[in-house]
């Protein structure tokens, strides 16, 4: 993620990546030599010395809190990869520090910048489906397909595991569509290949006006890459949405420009273009919206730390519910 943010941020004419901090001397020497950035192995030193306006944190999740706190204490605007931290208390502390310092604070839940999901949100919140009766969010992908893993993603203490890698995206997307989550009704985490982390997570979340089922598995090789899907059923219709397609069935009359019956819309006609494309419009759109917020000084932007805290609290509750079920059995 770090290199991808680097390229996206650096591609715009009015932004430049000036310094980078990493633990790998190999990566640092390569980047210093070929891109001319200043390189550091100590984030505090970089923050103090490099003359930065903002910082992107794309390190193992267990290190987010310290990096982010130091950056905010030095009044930097901050973009942190998802999830914000591994502890709701730490996430809340960062959210209040950012608000107090009036710094732009964004978390990389990139699904919120995918036009199909944005349109789904508009429809759900606009009442197109009537009263919501059932919601299902899922993410499947082929990340871990054998026992051995040697990066931080296979270590629980550093923030590895399907909960913080896959389930967090689904939970955040459900929050985006449905609003503030009230509580977690159940949670199960299980290992398929991994020793130290879970490979699959399922949960039920209560949103007050609706309950949502979460199903995620990062050891699924029936898909080529991570595939995230949400279905929402209401008493007036239902929709099915992924990053490419939105399908809505309206049962009892039109909604805005949507006629009764089935309408399918695609990313090709919904997504706004971005000035530089690397891996998907959403990755560029989130970085550029972070820059826009810095320019305009607005703290009212997508994916704030406060909104990421909602997601972190749900993840924590899922883990607790899973532990409780396991010890009960």
């Amino acid at each position, binding site marked *: 993620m770090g290199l991808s943010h680097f390229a996206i941020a650096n591609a715009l004419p009015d932004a430049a990546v000036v310094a980078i901090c990493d633990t790998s001397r190999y990566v640092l020497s390569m980047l210093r030599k070929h*891109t001319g950035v200043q390189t550091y192995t100590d984030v505090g030193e970089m923050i103090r010395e490099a003359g930065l306006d903002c910082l992107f944190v794309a390190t193992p999740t267990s290190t987010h809190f310290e990096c982010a706190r130091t950056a905010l204490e030095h009044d930097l605007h901050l973009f942190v990869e998802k999830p914000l931290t591994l502890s709701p208390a730490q996430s809340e502390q960062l959210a209040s520090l950012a608000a107090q310092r009036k710094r732009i604070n964004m978390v990389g839940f990139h699904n919120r910048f995918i036009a199909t999901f944005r349109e789904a949100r508009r429809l759900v919140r606009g009442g197109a489906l009537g009263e919501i009766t059932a919601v299902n969010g899922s993410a499947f992908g082929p990340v871990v397909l054998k026992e051995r*893993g040697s990066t931080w993603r296979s270590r629980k203490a550093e923030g590895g595991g399907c909960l913080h890698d896959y389930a967090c995206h689904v939970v955040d997307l459900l929050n985006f569509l449905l609003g503030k989550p009230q509580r977690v009704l159940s949670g199960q985490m299980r290992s398929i290949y991994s020793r130290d982390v879970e490979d699959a997570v399922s949960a039920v979340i209560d949103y007050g006006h609706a309950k949502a089922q979460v199903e995620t598995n990062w050891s699924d090789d029936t898909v080529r890459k991570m595939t995230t899907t949400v279905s929402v059923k209401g008493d007036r219709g239902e929709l099915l949405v992924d990053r490419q397609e939105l399908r809505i069935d309206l049962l009892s009359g039109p909604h805005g420009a949507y006629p009764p019956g089935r309408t399918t819309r695609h990313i*090709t006609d919904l997504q706004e273009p971005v000035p*530089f494309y690397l891996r998907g419009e959403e990755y560029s759109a989130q970085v550029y919206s972070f820059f826009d917020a810095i320019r305009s000084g607005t703290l009212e932007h997508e994916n704030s730390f406060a909104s990421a805290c909602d997601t972190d609290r749900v993840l924590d509750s899922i883990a607790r519910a899973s532990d409780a079920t396991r010890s009960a059995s």
Partner: protein
Amino acid sequence: MDRVLFGDNQFFGVNHMSEEKARQQLLRFKDAASIIEVLDQAYDLGIRTFMCTTHDRIGEICDHMRANRTRYRDFIYYPCMPYAHKYANSVSQVGLFETLQKYATGGTVSTVVRGAIGALTQDVVALMKLLVDAEMKRFEGLATPVIFVQNVVTDLLLGLKFTSVFAQFGRYVKERYGAEPGFITMNLPMLLPTLKAAEVENPIVCANINKIGFRMCGGIESYREALRTHRCRAIAMSVLGSGAIAPAEAIEWVCRFEGVQSIVFGASSEKNIRNTRDLIAQHWGPLQQTAS
């Protein structure tokens, strides 16, 4: 360079419009035989250049072509490397360094060799050469007159402004494989001046060029301007906007787009291959594919 090229997204579950369709295709093309059947149809319709990602399954297809040289006498590959998901999944599982070592050496090396490789990978150019060689192994003995860098790598390097690699890649594929370098990009107006500055002359580039401007960063007009002002050989891809534009309308538009020399398209049935070929022929004349 041929004017009509055959692409491979349909074979590997890549569909920019529908996950469902992508999945269906992934299931349909689960074995090499089903891919070869469609390649045969394209070849028999006169489309002999296959622009293909260096996906694991390409190896089996190459084996088939080598075993049937007479049947595929004029068959040409344009390898596009790397197959990014293979690397991305490996990077998240074993880390960047291990991944580079694994793929640069074919994964079967002793610890001692690993150490030597480790030292070698400090040098980006040496590393690039190792990775190109690893990807090119499966094409041995087959015609590969153009070797492409996939857009995820081209555009990553473009964003990082790590652009000296473009010329080094070009020199290496010329010297080692007698091939021309090609660059796939989603940011053509940004890439062309960069390649010029990096002294890659008259480059072969491949970019989305379609009537709805889908994934044409900077917009249709800036693509027009870039192609008008830079000497290059441009291949248009995603000409149907992933299916969002009616074929006849899409092909007419792209065939009239100044600076487009070739079109790459993918299809899974003989009927669709024939239709697209014939639509292009309506504007560019009947298929008379000539080697570069």
